[in-house]
């Protein structure tokens, strides 16, 4: 009962914040509010017993996505100059969409119904067989890395694609061939360097954030966490460092060739584990063949691919951040 009340409160807040985002003309306000939106969403996920997702949403939605939006705002515009809406098409389309969904979900199982079909098919099998077949306590990690490892492989390559996309769009060289040395976002965050307190406290926190990221990486089998969250956390630590010390120092700490290499290496590791399984006589991504004992093989496979995921995600986030912060206004 308590969770339902709390959930109601959070969901209502979500709607309020979303409306506020829609109404504001100031893009900075909108970006800040969308950070808050993600944070409330993360809290809500936690209430709904999805700890892994909550962690990911908090790091990626509220942390990294906000920083990326700010980086883009520094290079584009501060205000939304959309003309007043003259057409009724958007309103009708979106209302129709909402109407259809509400109409359909009137027959959906209520929240938390233990007899819902989703809890009767497939999912119980995971909960039953994970201790036997894979033997890691966190079932989410088991499903993510092994049962549906092919999805996760695809996902790593989605991030990889985004990274090469951003790099080919905002790479070092412009179409005209000139190099950019001083980035606009760098300049704007530069004044943070002259403030002692944020700088000292920020620097003090960086090692702990990175440490926490590593903990999440290697503790992902036992508690909430795994490669995605860890990669994003480590990247958040490095980004914080770049913010308080200036982008140039940040790029000294993690050079761009290094983060770029990390991206490709992570994706490569994942694919290579899959191919190695094929070479050792199993199917693609069948980790059981990696060792004499199938369960041990699964552990090894999960460790390796989580490392690949962590490397890719951390590399991608850092690379994309640098790509935005390095860019100067033309």
């Amino acid at each position: 009962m308590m969770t339902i009340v709390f959930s109601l409160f959070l969901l209502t807040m979500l709607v309020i914040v979303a409306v506020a985002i829609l109404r504001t003309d100031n893009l900075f306000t909108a970006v800040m509010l969308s950070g808050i939106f993600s944070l409330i969403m993360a809290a809500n996920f936690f209430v709904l017993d999805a700890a892994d997702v909550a962690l990911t949403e908090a790091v990626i939605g509220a942390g990294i996505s906000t920083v990326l939006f700010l980086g883009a705002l520094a290079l584009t515009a501060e205000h939304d100059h959309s003309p007043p809406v003259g057409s009724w098409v958007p309103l009708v389309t979106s209302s129709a969409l909402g109407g259809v969904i509400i109409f359909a979900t009137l027959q959906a199982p209520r929240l938390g119904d233990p007899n819902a079909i989703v809890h009767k098919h497939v999912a119980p099998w995971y909960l039953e067989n994970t201790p036997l077949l894979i033997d890691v306590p966190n079932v989410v990690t088991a499903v993510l890395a092994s049962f549906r490892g092919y999805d996760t492989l695809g996902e790593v390559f989605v991030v990889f694609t985004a990274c090469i996309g951003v790099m080919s769009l905002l790479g070092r060289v412009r179409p005209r061939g000139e190099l950019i040395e001083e980035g606009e976002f760098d300049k704007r965050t530069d004044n943070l360097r002259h403030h002692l307190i944020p700088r000292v406290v920020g620097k003090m926190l960086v090692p702990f954030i990175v440490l926490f990221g590593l903990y999440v990486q290697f503790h992902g089998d036992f508690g909430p966490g795994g490669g995605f969250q860890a990669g994003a956390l480590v990247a958040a630590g490095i980004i914080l460092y770049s913010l308080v010390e200036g982008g140039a120092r940040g790029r000294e700490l993690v050079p761009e060739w290094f983060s770029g290499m990390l991206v490709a290496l992570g994706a490569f590791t994942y694919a290579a584990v899959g191919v190695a399984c094929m070479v050792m006589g199993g199917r693609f991504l069948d980790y059981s063949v990696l060792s004499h004992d199938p369960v041990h093989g699964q552990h090894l496979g999960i460790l390796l691919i989580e490392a690949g995921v962590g490397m890719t995600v951390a590399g991608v986030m850092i690379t994309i951040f640098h790509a935005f912060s390095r860019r100067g206004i033309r």
Partner: protein
Amino acid sequence: MALLGLYNYFVFAVLLMIGLYCVLARTNIVKSLIGLSIFQSAVFLLYISMDKVDGGTAPIIQEGVENQVFANPLPQVLILTAIVVGISTTALALAVAVRIKEAYGTIEEDKIQEMDREP
């Protein structure tokens, strides 16, 4: 009480509407992209709402504890994937927005359309 159990889905519908409206009605590219990310987050809410079981906990099996009820792990895995896909799309779209600003000098779609019309 029955409707209260469906409140999640209603919020999902409302967020979807707000997101889609923002995408369609705003001509500012960054604003549309914020709308797009709300649109995507709404879907996360749909999936995660499905995973809850009354009296359940996060699906982490603890040794020595019997008869625990766990939330459904599958939607969580799917949404972990979807969140990462979402940020990838956003990052790429923002990079395109930056390049559009550099090429056109504005990120208002209606103005860009005018500029493209006159050769």
